[in-house]
């Protein structure tokens, strides 16, 4: 607890007593303020409860002996005994129901067992305890506590108080079990077990009663077309596929089909538990009667239902189930259990090697689209959602059939990255960026241009503003990157996006959507409209029960509902870790803002002129200072201008993207390092992140005193600490220190020497690091950053030879090549 919570009153207070005090006062207040009818007051008149329930606690405690002292003594004794039964014992008393050994119906037994608290997996039957020798018993008491027998009897007595039937088993010197008849056994399963479990006793029931082992009465759907979904004609609502499945109904218990006659016989039997084909089954007669009526009405017909409808019905109504032996069940199983997805081969046209989980992701995307469902790919940041989508674009084009353009809607800060990644991984695919003041406004011309490209990229803002252009087209697919952008169902951009017509829809997000229910609804409203019902009904059916009441049934139902549509792998999954290298480097491309571009061009023009006039040291100096100034502009206009103007994310896509990525990382509980070579950026970054993300931040630079530096490092490394952001200057923080708490490293600007950068990244990537380290290097497109980056990656060998410890190797370039290096490509500018 932060000490701030413990402040107030007379100075600071210890956390625990304060928390207790607070909880007790609040609870006391709640109980005292509860309106109670006069009839209730009468029931408790004369008891200590009356004083406990007065609106205000008595001003003075009881001090005079005599009044209430006797009652207090009794209360204290009563309380002590309860507490002792709860806490003092070294074991938990338990009850294990055992079914009749032979063919009989009524010789059930409820065994008493003791479960040692230090080894809860062990279960000692009391019958074994009593039949043990004195020496063995003494040994057992070593584990169960010296006063085992006292606690045993006390606990048995307390249990018997709630379930009087237990007294029957206590009429002996060695209590070990109670015999139950069928009805009593059923009452135990349905009532007593709950009471006893709530009261802290361990309950062991037969496997067939557990949620996993229970054989339920069901109406099964058996597909008549062998599970093959037939693709119906596009329906009126757009181009979305309705995959219809023809099926029939069957009555079943567990895995076994039951004829209507047998079903009727079971309904007619008088007992709640029935031995059905060798195993005990609970029968809910009323429900079975209903099912039978349903089956009598529909059993003979062959009906059709869409896959979505089948998924919804089996998720929300327990009575329905798809026949397990059926191909349809196999299909649904593949949707629910991703382990069953076979990774596909890399598409030949893809210039990348997919990792196994990415191949699974690709298989999932394809499978989902083949059966006409729309999903949400929600992998953790850094696992390569972009690459999986690009792989799908490549894959579907290799199938031979002509494929229309996919529309990608993404935040402005990532559109450059998308373009660059497509170029890199699938250079044969073409992208078309719809953005900027000169963008196409004519519907026909837009449609024409779009048709010629694989991927049309635009932003959320334009998806709304140029709605008319986008809705005029039938897209092959609409992809939403950072789909949490449509989390507000009322927002105009959400509505605009939902109106798009597409054969397939795909949402990408790195935030855990399953926990934010309205976000979830909104995303589903885009991918599978209607699947989660209307917003109002979703709210009353799921949001309120799950988030306000923590209702486990609604939570489980919702999970079953959405599970098939969401693929979320987290980087801490064992299977994923196996698949990842220990360190993963990725370039994060971003664009220059208009303001940055203007400043950049100004510098370039000035330098081009000066370059001709200088030579020797002066020329080298000019080149180095130019590199420096241009880098500053690529970071943020304010850094270059040094005019005190706001260091805001709106003025730099790089900063914006950094902020978005940090939010995601921190939401996951990860800590990060950010390196910059500029002290002024470090300070600004630290301040901005502290103020806007409200996270714990540290800033280490050349001027940090040694003691402060040590304190920051140990605070950051504290395993109990909050996830934090550590901003470091490359020079001061690039060597020597260990910051393995971080598993994301950002290089905000670049030092054009891979060795120096690697050394900095290794602050997180060294002994003690247990997670995969993600290194993100920012590169602004169309600027010297992109060109130098390309030079380094393309000519690694060459770079190794000429790249020195600093950036002076760049000054070896002749004037023309230098001008080429720093030139700005206007098409990479995005507002």
């Amino acid at each position, binding site marked *: 607890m*932060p000490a701030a919570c413990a402040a107030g009153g007379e100075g600071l207070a210890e956390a625990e007593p304060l928390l207790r005090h607070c909880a007790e006062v609040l609870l006391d207040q709640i109980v005292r303020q509860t309106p109670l009818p006069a009839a209730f007051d009468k029931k408790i008149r004369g008891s200590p409860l009356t004083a406990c329930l007065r609106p205000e606690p008595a001003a003075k405690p009881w001090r005079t002996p005599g009044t209430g002292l006797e009652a207090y003594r009794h209360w204290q004794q009563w309380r002590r005994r309860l507490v002792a039964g709860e806490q003092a014992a070294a074991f938990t008393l338990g009850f294990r129901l055992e079914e009749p050994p032979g063919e009989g119906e009524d010789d059930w037994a409820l065994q008493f067992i003791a479960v040692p608290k230090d080894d809860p997996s062990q279960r000692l039957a009391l019958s074994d305890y009593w039949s043990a020798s004195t020496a063995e018993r003494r040994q057992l008491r070593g584990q169960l506590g010296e006063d085992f027998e006292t606690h045993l009897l006390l606990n048995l007595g307390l249990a018997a108080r709630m379930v009087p039937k237990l007294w029957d088993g206590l*009429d002996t010197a060695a209590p070990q079990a109670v015999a139950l008849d069928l009805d009593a056994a059923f009452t135990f399963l349905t009532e007593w077990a709950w009471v006893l479990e709530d009261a802290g006793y361990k309950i062991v029931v037969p496997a067939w009663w557990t949620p996993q082992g229970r054989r339920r009465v069901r109406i099964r759907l058996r597909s008549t077309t062998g599970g093959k979904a037939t693709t119906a004609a596009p329906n009126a609502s757009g181009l979305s596929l309705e995959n219809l499945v023809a099926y029939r109904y069957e009555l079943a218990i567990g895995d076994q089909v039951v004829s209507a006659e047998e079903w009727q016989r079971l309904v007619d039997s008088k007992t709640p538990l029935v031995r059905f084909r060798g195993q005990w089954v609970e029968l809910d007669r009323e429900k079975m009667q209903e099912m039978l009526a349903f089956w009598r009405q529909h059993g003979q017909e062959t009906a059709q239902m869409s896959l979505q409808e089948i998924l919804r019905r089996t998720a929300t109504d327990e009575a329905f189930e798809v026949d397990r032996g059926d191909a349809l069940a196999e299909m649904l199983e593949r949707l629910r259990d991703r382990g069953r997805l076979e990774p596909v081969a890399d598409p030949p046209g893809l210039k990348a090697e997919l990792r196994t989980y990415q191949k699974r992701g690709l298989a999932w995307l394809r499978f989902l689209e083949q059966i006409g469902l729309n999903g949400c790919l929600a992998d953790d940041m850094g696992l390569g959602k972009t690459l999986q989508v690009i792989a799908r674009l490549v894959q579907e084009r290799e199938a031979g059939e002509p494929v229309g353009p996919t529309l990608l809607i993404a935040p402005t800060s990532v559109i450059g990255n998308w373009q660059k990644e497509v170029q890199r991984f699938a250079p044969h695919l073409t992208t078309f960026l719809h953005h900027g003041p000169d963008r196409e406004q004519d519907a026909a011309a837009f449609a024409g241009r779009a048709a010629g490209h694989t991927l049309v990229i635009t932003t959320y803002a334009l998806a709304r503003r140029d709605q008319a252009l986008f809705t005029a087209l039938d897209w092959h697919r609409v992809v939403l990157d950072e789909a949490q952008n449509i989390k507000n169902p009322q927002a105009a951009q959400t509505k605009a996006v939902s109106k798009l017509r597409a054969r397939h829809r795909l949402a990408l997000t790195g935030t855990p959507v399953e926990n934010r229910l309205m976000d979830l609804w909104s995303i589903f409203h885009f991918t599978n409209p209607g699947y989660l019902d209307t917003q109002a009904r979703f709210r009353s059916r799921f949001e309120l029960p799950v988030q306000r009441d923590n209702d486990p049934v609604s939570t489980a139902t919702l999970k079953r509902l959405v599970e098939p549509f969401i693929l979320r792998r987290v980087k801490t999954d064992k299977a994923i870790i196996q698949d990842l290298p220990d360190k993963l480097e990725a370039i994060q491309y971003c664009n220059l803002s208009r303001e940055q571009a203007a400043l950049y061009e100004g510098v370039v023009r000035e330098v081009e002129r000066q370059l001709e006039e200088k030579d020797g040291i002066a020329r080298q100096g000019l080149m180095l200072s130019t590199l420096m100034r241009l880098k500053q502009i690529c970071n943020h206009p304010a850094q270059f201008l040094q005019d005190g103007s706001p260091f805001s994310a709106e003025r730099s896509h790089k900063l914006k993207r950094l902020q978005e990525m940090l939010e995601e990382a921190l939401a996951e509980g990860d800590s990060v390092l950010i390196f910059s070579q500029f002290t002024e950026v470090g300070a600004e970054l630290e301040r901005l992140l502290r103020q806007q993300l409200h996270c714990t931040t540290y800033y280490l630079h050349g001027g940090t005193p040694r003691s402060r530096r040590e304190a920051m490092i140990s605070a950051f490394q504290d395993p109990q600490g909050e996830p934090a952001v550590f901003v470091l200057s490359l020079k001061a923080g690039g060597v020597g220190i260990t910051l393995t708490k971080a598993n994301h490293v950002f290089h905000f600007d670049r030092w054009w020497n891979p060795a120096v950068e690697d050394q900095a990244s290794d602050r997180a990537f060294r002994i003690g690091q247990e997670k995969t380290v993600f290194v993100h290097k920012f590169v602004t497109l169309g600027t010297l950053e992109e060109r130098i980056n390309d030079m380094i990656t393309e000519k690694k060998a060459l770079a190794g030879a000429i790249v020195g410890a600093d950036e002076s190797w760049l000054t070896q370039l002749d004037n023309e090549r230098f001008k080429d290096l720093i030139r700005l490509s206007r098409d990479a500018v995005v507002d």
Partner: protein
Amino acid sequence: MAQLGKTWWGQRFIAALEGFTDRGRLQRGRGYSGESRILAFAVSDGLVTATVRGNVNPYYGVYKEPRYRTRIQMAPIAPKDWDKALAHLGSNAALVAKLLMNEMPDNIDSAFAGLRLHLLPASRKDFALTECSCPDYANPCKHIAGVYYRLAGQLDRDPFLLFELRGLSRERLHQALSTTPLGKALASLAEDRSAPIDAAESFFTRPAPAGATPDYRAFWQGERRLPSEIAPARPPAVPAILVKKGGDFPAFWEPEGSFIAAMEELYRRVREKNKDAL
């Protein structure tokens, strides 16, 4: 006025008295069972002695408020019979468990059955001595009846008292019980009935001043990471479960109705009425 004899054995005690005494007479004694009438009350070696405040009655020539000395003693059970009864007691888990919970087992007399004896009184013969220094020659007089009721109330709280009234001292009881494993359990409990009272200085846990002043970061953010998710609390299937474990009619409970029922209602109402806050 609290009801005395709320427990089945307390009621049985009174029912037994009612069986062999004039009911009306006994009823009049009810008013004499409270603290205002019984000035002193003690049980020692099975003998109950009490000092009861009488009434001024000029008709009988009583002008000064009188104090009567009342004594009651039940017929003791012979030591050798006790040994047998205790042996039976110590070998029956149900009996011991009930007594452990401070309840008189409803089949307690089964321990005495083979001996043609019983623990709870059944007839006048079970009372060896009932005397009062008041001028009323009838027995029971109001004072004796008052002490009877007081005794029934004491029995509600302390079923072990009946053993003492039947001539088995607490020490002997303890000793005898210790010889069987189950009885040992009971014996350890019989000891703690005179535990001292813990005085509470405050209704609530008092905040304690913290020692050192934390640094800024710890002050605002704490030293440990707060859990990002808190597992939802599942409402219990049955209300007042802990209270139920304690049994109905605990000693401090004076009203006539069931303590558990009252607590169940309280839990239910508190939960329902504070849905938004809880």
